[in-house]
């Protein structure tokens, strides 16, 4: 199992091969766990729930991932985020704090990038993203956190910030562009062997 690629493991999962799922678990659980525990703000019960749902999704919706569409790890994090945010939002909804019609977060399939190399060590990426984020203005940072990590929609953020939706939209555009520019030259060139 250990020598198999992610794609080969997915192929085996399609054939209901349990050890393949366990191998994927061993490979990625730390990443999924770390991600979920951040998004749930350290709630280990909820984190467990998310990890369970992610692997259930892997097992039950076997053909969703298509290797030609990009990095498995990005896809995995996308579904982890979707599941996490669904969970957070469901709770917010019951608490009555989010009163807006909540749109189903859809998967970003088909738009996955092949350029971000999986081999780039996560720590390096983490440092880069943190550094890039630090160069954003205070409101831009807040926007990215609310949007990406807290799962708020743009119109909810507009309400929180008491700014017109248009302002928030262009703030997002500026923030993403700035982040991208801060990354430029740093990714793509760095390739580590595994």
């Amino acid at each position, binding site marked *: 199992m250990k020598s198999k690629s992610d794609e080969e493991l997915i192929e085996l999962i399609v054939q209901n091969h*349990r050890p393949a*799922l*366990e191998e994927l*678990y061993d490979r990625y*659980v*730390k990443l999924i*766990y*770390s*991600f979920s*525990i*951040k998004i749930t703000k350290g709630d*280990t019960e909820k984190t*467990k729930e998310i*990890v*369970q749902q992610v*692997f*259930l999704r892997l*097992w*039950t919706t076997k053909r969703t991932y298509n290797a030609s569409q990009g990095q498995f790890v*990005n896809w995995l*994090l*996308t579904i982890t*985020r979707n599941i996490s945010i669904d969970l957070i939002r469901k709770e917010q909804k019951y608490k*009555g704090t989010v*009163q807006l*019609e909540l*749109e189903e*977060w*859809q998967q*970003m399939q088909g*738009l*996955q*990038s092949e*350029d*971000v190399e999986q081999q780039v060590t*996560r720590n390096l*990426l*983490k440092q*880069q*993203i*943190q550094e890039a*984020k630090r160069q954003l203005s205070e409101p831009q940072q807040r926007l*990215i956190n609310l*949007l*990406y990590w807290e799962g708020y*929609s*743009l119109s909810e953020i507009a309400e929180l910030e008491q700014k017109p939706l248009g302002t928030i*939209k*262009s703030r*997002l*555009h500026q923030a*993403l*562009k700035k*982040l*991208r520019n801060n*990354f*430029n030259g740093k*990714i793509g060139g760095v390739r580590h062997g595994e």
Partner: protein
Amino acid sequence: MENKCDNLSLFIINELTNQDKKQFEDHLLKCAKCQQELKSIQETWQMLSYDVEETEVPESLKSQVMDFVFEENKFLKHEEKKEAEPMSFKERILSVAKKHFSPISTAVTAILIICLIGFYWNSLHLKDTIKALENNAADPTQIVTTYSLTGESFAASATGSAYLLQEGTETNLVIALNNMPITKGNEVYQVWLLKNGNRQSAGTLIPDQNGSGLITYRLPPEYSFEDIGITLEPNPFNTQPQGQKVLGT
């Protein structure tokens, strides 16, 4: 063109409506700038996921996850399906409504229950529920009009919604109020329907401890009105308002 390019970020974070999304996809085919930017900004968005501290995973998690996937898989899939089924909640409301509140219309009761449970339902949700109820009710019910009520003076933080429901030949007005200041002594809130400067009482209510209140009123046949006003009255049996207006359309 300019304008459409601005939707790139929204497209990436998936916050466009289906229609705007289609339009943007068309735009993307034609716009070299967006094509060029799409990938890099998409990557940037995904890079955000790396901003996490590595956390030790508990040893016991693996067996919990695997048990969940393999042993409870079927059971949970069944449960999920039930949860995702919006009808079940409506059906439950409907059955409660039928059992306990036969004198008033099922739809009106359903709305009252929904409001009582404390769910936030906008008129769209409500329409949806009513639609679901239609199959079960003898007469189809329709929301004719939705009003939103705004608080004023000492009840400035109060909010409310009113729904005009048509069921067969009957018209019912349902009003749900929130954040109402608590009444004292004999005080009541009274609902007035305004037409051509005339006021007709549509009932009184006393909000609960949380400041929430509900009232339903069956309109006289062929009756219409222009506005809804709510006053705080010193006693419950006024035919014309004495007290201060606190909410209105």
